[in-house]
């Protein structure tokens, strides 16, 4: 199921995917870019972690664990 329009990645449930448009926080952007998360990457939310605030995310072909706050600064189109 595609994301409807440009929205923060934290708003979506497991199984949804889309393409990263941009980041809304420079501080986090620098770190995300370093680990290979960048505009144009394909992002898919694989599953929610136990006890809440942590997500298992697939970016292109690689798996990354991100907190809700970190996902919130990723805009998906």
């Amino acid at each position, binding site marked *: 199921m595609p994301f409807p329009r440009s929205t923060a990645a934290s708003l979506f449930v497991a199984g949804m995917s889309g393409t990263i448009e941009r980041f809304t926080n420079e501080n986090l952007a620098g770190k995300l870019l370093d680990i290979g998360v960048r505009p144009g990457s394909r992002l898919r939310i694989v599953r929610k972690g136990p006890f809440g605030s942590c997500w298992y995310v697939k970016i292109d072909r690689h798996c990354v*664990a991100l*907190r809700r706050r970190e996902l919130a600064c990723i805009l998906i189109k």
Partner: protein
Amino acid sequence: MANSDFTSPPLTAPVVGLVGNPNSGKSSLFNLLTGLRQRIGNFPGVTVEKKSGTLTIDDLPPVELVDFPGAYSCYPTSLDERLVVQELTNPKGDLFPDAILYVADVTKLDKHLLLFTQLRDLDLPMILVLNMADLIDETGLQVDIPLLSEKLGVPVVTVSAREGRGVAELKQAIGDLLRDPQAFRPGEPFYEPGAPARDVLADLRQALPARNDYHALLLTHHASWLRHVPEKLRHRVQEARVKNGFHSLRAQVEETMERYDTFEPIVKKAVRHAGDKESLSDKLDGVLAHHLFGPVIFIALMLFLFQALFAWSGWPMDGIEWFFGQLGGGVRATLPEGWLADLLVDGIIAGLGGVLVFVPQIAILFLFITILEEVGYMARAAYLFDSIMQRFGLNGRSVVALISGHACAIPAIMSTRTIANWKERLLTILVTPLTSCSARIPVYVILISFAVPDGSFAGFGYQGLAFAGLYFLGILAAMASAWLFKFVLKTGERSFLMLELPDYRTPVWRNVGLTVWQKVKTFIVEAGQVILFISIVLWGLSSYGPPSQMAEAEVRAEQVITANNLSGDDADDVLAGEKLEASYAGHIGKFIEPVIRPLGYDWKIGIALFASFAAREVFVGTMATIYSVGSAGDDGLRVRDRMAEEVNPVTGQAVYNPATAWSLLVFYVFAMMCMSTLAVTKRETGGWKWPIIQFTFMTVLAYVSAMGVYQLLT
């Protein structure tokens, strides 16, 4: 690039740096290249573990291969990464490499080339090593090596650190590069500093000791913390940054994006993926990282780990114990009776044997932890528990430290360097020593036998359950303390998870073996030294005392012996007991006895407690020393049996009753009794403040809880 200060490195002792992203298989390659010829030290000024080894290539002088910590880019977030940037931007440093082996995972080339292009622009002679070449065949991945080499402008070598393929080619390439580094210098840079940095660079370019523009740019970004930038220059850089409105973060993002744009097309052209089908790793994570099964499996795994720890270590421990028994008997038989034999047998052999007996358990513990790390499970554990850890003010990565802490707090504290947030890192450092490290095992083993009766319930031994309980108590205390400290410590810094979850892999046994061997060796050498020293000092303190008092003690013993008509061993015991009480150690024990009496300890335990503050594992050795002194000549009995015989002269009851044993156990769970850990905390936190706080809170916690337990049980 306008630079002229590049000179050919002298080939007397070439340094080759191994650099790459975390999880690129860098350490595997290092182990493959150097095997057992590794040296472990520290990078200058920091406790980041520095591994180096010697590499021989044909006719070249021996090459020093330095394994740098994994890093994602030249914009570090953790201490490990900072070190890489620091050493690679300091051409005058001892560790500045003559050449770099840049290790990249062939399946993640689209991410791993970021740091590569940055280092390339620093004008460092490089070889790109594509690791995990075994996957090229396995997964149908196709890589056009000549194209990569041409586009990136460096030699490209494929190796499989796992299967040991490609080493000869790699050595050949290193040799070629060292012989003629000029031929390997880059042509065009991948990135030219863009608009946000142009003004500040024009201002600073002449002032900075930089090899080229990119080097100058990195110095501008990082001058505030780079150790090799002098104070004056730091101010100069800061002024220029403000004057020209240089925004470090924005410039970093701009640079990174541009770099990706440059190398992404190259990777797309050179690497073909076989398709995007669900891998085995994804399927495994469907279960292992499941929000319900994941934590359950984790706990089951830990239970299995500790069960195995005791089930598997039985016979090697018996063997070691037997060996030291024989050794002591042999020495006793060979040497003439006297102080030398006493010192060797009662002091040194008893002390060493008491600790070496636990090497099998320590080895098994490290084996498990290393395997979990190698297969990639630790990252999952961090993911699974991040949410919980956050509530306690910790980070998911703290799980790794808290698990490793069960082997030894020292590497565990060092592993916190991957936590970028200072508060989370500090909390982890403070509470990790509360987890029951392997040095507590000997203490637990002996004391549990007094605290808990033999027997079993539903297949679980009571003593085993008590053991598990103590471990659990340690974890509980660690979490509770973290939660309390969370409210005391304040920080404005943001906290991150952003954790890579690498594909699962079968462990490379060479790596596992080497790691376990190194850790065990360190334990034996370091703990051995402390124990040797303490055994000798303690033996001296307990054999000698103020001469007049020692003489009095002999007289008193004589009276008791004649009055009760004792002879043989009993008479020896009485004499030795009186002498121990009069000795210097006895004085120390008596001195602290009033403080520890409410905890149910006598002055002999006081001596052991006192000695344990250097390193808790000396408890058993100290007991051995104290009780051997108590009955010289009769060495058929082991420490445990001797302790069981110990009777309180006032009440006539056994000294090691369950209440005292439990009180001691709780004390040893909580107390900060390890100088080495305090030293590491000091180095990692940069001062005495935190080690002192750590020591105080743990010791107070130990004292109060042990007293509570004793008063409750009596």
